[in-house]
């Protein structure tokens, strides 16, 4: 009987070990098995870009290369709350993926970074927050063209000039009226 167990134990252990290794290799993204670290700025300002980085690694310290992560930002507008994608990154050869993000709203930003391994049913996610202070107006309403040099002043100048000339004609008429009293000198040789 001991001889039977000893004969079975070796291959059984080998099979168990192989199975465990297979299992480990095949499902590397089980949450409890992945190390995810984020690197967010402590503070930011509206309109100034920041880098939101994430570092993915296996539990034994090896970096997770070439993994696509998606960044979601919690947004709220007109009474509707939800998450919107703000970027995607692919981790490089040291497992770091980062997006360059320009904050557009002030207040607390809650970012969720999600990693879905190919073929996996579940996702890895990590949450991070950073505060954004208010900034300058980024988008301005134009409301029409601005052509340098064509302005009301030019128009007024031209128009004023025309009316001044008409005024000078009016003065000529005044001159005619005033010259009514004076008759021509009796030389009789006026221009003809």
């Amino acid at each position, binding site marked *: 009987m001991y001889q039977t167990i000893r004969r079975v134990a070796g291959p059984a252990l080998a099979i168990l070990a192989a199975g465990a290794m297979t299992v480990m290799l095949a499902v590397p993204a089980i949450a409890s098995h992945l190390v995810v670290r984020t690197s967010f700025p402590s503070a930011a300002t509206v309109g100034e870009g920041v880098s939101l980085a994430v570092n993915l690694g296996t539990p034994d310290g090896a970096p997770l290369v070439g993994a696509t992560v998606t960044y979601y930002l919690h947004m709220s*507008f007109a009474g509707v709350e939800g*998450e919107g994608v703000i970027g995607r990154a692919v981790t490089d050869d040291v497992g770091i993926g980062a997006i360059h993000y320009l904050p557009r*709203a002030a207040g607390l930003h809650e970012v969720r970074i999600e990693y879905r391994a190919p073929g996996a049913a579940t996702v890895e996610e990590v949450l991070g927050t950073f505060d954004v202070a208010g900034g300058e107006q980024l988008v301005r309403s134009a*409301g029409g063209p601005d052509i340098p040099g064509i302005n009301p002043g030019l128009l007024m100048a031209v128009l004023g000039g025309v009316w001044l000339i008409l005024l000078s004609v*009016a003065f000529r008429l005044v001159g005619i009226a005033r010259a009514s009293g004076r008759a021509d000198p009796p030389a009789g040789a*006026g221009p003809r």
Partner: protein
Amino acid sequence: MDRLNGDPPDGRARDVLPDGALTVEPSTGRRGTAIGRRRVLHMLGLGALAVSPIPVVPELMRIAQSGRAAEPARGTRPPALTQDGRIRQWTMIIDLRSCDGCQGVGGPPRCTAACIQGHLAPEPMEWIQVFEEELPGGGSRFVPTPCMQCQNPPCNNVCPVGATFSTPEGTVLIDQDRCIGCRICMAACPYDRRFFNWGEAPVPPQARLADYSAEHQVPARKGTVMKCDFCPDMARAGTLPYCVQACPNRAIYYGDLEEDIATNGRAVVSASRFLAENNAFRWKEELGTEPRVYYLPGHGEAVGRDAFTPGRAATEWPWTEIVEGAETWSR
């Protein structure tokens, strides 16, 4: 008788005879002429004075009226602001992949119907109008078309009295108390989005109860222009416009370009990313009007519409009763 050359007249003595003596004709009354001359000088002097300040009269009238130069925006409340005090810049994104002209739900397009109900828009005004456009390869798509809220608005540029104006949020509004009804803005708009009150607007009587403001054009004034206004009063209060709320497929997104955010009532998106990743376009981009309304190309496929199914139900104005003296007109 050549008075111009001072020739002696035939038969009647005037001022100068050939020998140079002066005579006075009693009947002409030179004294009468002298009085007339003074009066004429007086008139001419006054005339000249009256005429010369014409170029500055408008400014003088404005200052006399209000004590200050005219501001462009009237009758609107302070602009909508983000949390940190920046002015919101309203925008609309219309996802044509989800618009089927309400073929799927049946009946006239809900966006137009809600806008008509909410603003008591007179027939036949469709401030947001669903056009059916033929696609180059065949088939058609439906394009809900509100006012484009251009950033280089042709209507603003041509208005003689500034009755149509841009707010700080980028929205183009109309002040129906100032509009003189010249309709040059209607000739200038390249999107067919301005409507004229040709007669007394055929609206239900309750329209008369509303307080008119440029942000909520109820009741309509006869002889003035009106159009979609992006519902700025609702947006400022944090409510979505009628058309956005009413769309059964949630095809219309309303957003703020300053905060780079938009929503269709269910989902929230980053506006710039949403536009870029979905190949957004604007209508008649080549005209340089810089519209604030973006479109995502499609033909209703996301809600199951086949591109070759034509036709949509006609818009209705469901008033049971309209004000007296009003009659509808055609477009």
